[in-house]
């Protein structure tokens, strides 16, 4: 028996390690955020909510969070619309260059973000567009759109294309077919894609550092600066809140998907 049991033990051990490494850093931050001492400390010597109070009381942090939210909302709308239309074109279109086009459209996913950031900086600087929310929206939309394309295209490939032919034969134009048949078919995937697009922008730091300039400072960029210059324990509270926001959004997307499947 030991020979049969050993692989199973190794598997459990391996999976356990994976879970520990995935969850432990988050747990450390969450626990540290309830720290009562004035320094970053783990494990905390005393407990309090002071860093949360400080975050909500600070105008600097509040403004950064507001900018992040505004940018992320615009990016979500733009990249979901662009990505969904692109996915429909890629999956249902008749062009011969479909494969090449798809590779090209999702290429921002494989280009290192830092390369994209430097490139965009040199592109936008002469146009005096750096240091604005617009530059951030542009940069984040470039990174978020491929994610939407991949998710929506996967759902479209699984959906039944004859539904769209049926709609056309019943008198629906191409646009009305997209609106009444195609989009409702993949609505859960579009929802999930929107959630990922939102988080991609909301959590993004590299583009924010390069394109935000001194004026447009997002939450992750403010955190990065705070990390470099002061190691403010408020960071742990913000990190915890960001984690909660991300978890809630993804869980909501997942629940919406389940509800759709059941209806």
């Amino acid at each position, binding site marked *: 028996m030991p020979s049969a049991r050993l692989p199973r033990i190794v598997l459990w051990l391996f999976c356990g390690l994976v879970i520990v490494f995935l969850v432990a850093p988050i747990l450390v931050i969450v626990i540290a955020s309830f720290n009562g001492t004035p320094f970053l400390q783990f494990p905390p010597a005393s407990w309090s909510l002071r860093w949360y109070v400080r975050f909500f009381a600070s105008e600097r942090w509040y403004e950064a969070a507001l900018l992040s939210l505004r940018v992320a909302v615009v990016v979500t709308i733009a990249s979901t619309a662009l990505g969904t239309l692109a996915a429909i074109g890629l999956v249902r279109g008749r062009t011969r260059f479909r494969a090449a086009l798809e590779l090209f459209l999702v290429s921002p996913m494989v280009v290192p973000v830092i390369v994209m950031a430097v490139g965009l900086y040199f592109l936008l600087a002469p146009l005096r567009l750096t240091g604005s929310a617009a530059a951030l929206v542009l940069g984040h939309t470039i990174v978020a759109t491929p994610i939407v394309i991949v998710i929506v295209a996967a759902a479209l490939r699984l959906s039944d294309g*004859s539904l769209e032919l049926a709609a056309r034969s019943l008198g629906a134009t191409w646009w009305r077919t997209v609106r009444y048949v195609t989009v409702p*078919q993949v609505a859960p995937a579009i929802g999930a894609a929107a959630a990922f697009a939102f988080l991609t922008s909301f959590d993004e730091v590299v583009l924010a550092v390069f394109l935000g300039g001194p004026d447009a400072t997002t939450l992750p960029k403010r955190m990065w600066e705070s990390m470099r210059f002061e190691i403010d324990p408020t960071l742990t509270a913000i990190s915890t809140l960001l984690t909660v926001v991300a978890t809630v959004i993804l869980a909501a997307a997942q629940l919406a998907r389940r509800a759709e499947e059941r209806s």
Partner: protein
Amino acid sequence: MAAKGGALVLRRLTKHYPNMAAVDGIDLEIAAGEFLTLLGPSGSGKTTTLMMVAGFTPPTAGDVLLDGSSIAGLAPERRNIGVVFQNYALFPHMSIADNIAFPLKMRGMARPAIAAKVEAALGLVQLSGLGGRRPRQLSVGQQQRVALARALVFEPGLLLMDEPLGALDKKLREDMQFELKRLHGELGVTIVYVTHDQEEALTLSDRIALMNAGRIEQLGRAEDLYERPVSRFVAEFIGESNLLDGRVEAGWFTTPDGIRAPVAARADGAVLLMLRPEKVVLAPESATDGLAGTVSELVYGGDFTRYRVAVGAATLTAKIANSRAPFRPAVGASVRVLWHPGDECIIPK
């Protein structure tokens, strides 16, 4: 819902793909109110033809005319043709009533009028009261009826059906065949029906176009195709057949391996002789005419028995009704194979 049938004309209709001709210059005239079936094996081009008529596949060449005017350049939504798909293609996120209302909504009809039409369409396919359900809550047969109602509710002159009964079991398929015939008679709509099932084609159609390799092999009524096939392909595709290669000379048919039988007068030359198994008569060895043979196999089939008889190097199949068969030879028995003059069909080569 009294639709008036539309007349459809296909003129040299062609679809070439890079290395094959899916449809190779088809000419076809379908009269208003006719039920025409495109029959053929898979890959014969029947579905491609249908998709070109519906407007989903652009033809390489040729024209499609509906009631005299060309529709080849029109988008599918502007052709006003009902289509029933193989998998029904009901919209799963809409109720049955909304599915049927869809074409009316797309045509900008007023709500009260839509409601009345949907109700009438549900009644027509005997699904009254099920409008509130979702497609997945219906049986396959009911979904089929909804697809039919949805394709007919906007009163198209032409209805295209792509293997619509393929997913149904035998009993349901027969019910739906009756239903289709009834609807066709009631509405007078022209139907172009695609199937690979010859029995379905024979039962339903006014005329059948048997397709092979992108061309129409034979066009005619069911009995034309069954009794007077023009080629080996037609004879083999429709029903069972005994086929013998040989020559006709002076009213006698002969094969290289020595079969010799009188046939209805025909021009001399190389021919294919086709004999349907149910036309074959078996007689005792003592009979004076007919071909001598030996029963090699028999299969009891309820209302008939199928005999396999070795005649020289050939094997002929005889399908004999059990109700009136005084002579029932066993396996190994020597028999005489004959048929009434004129029951054979001579296909010139």
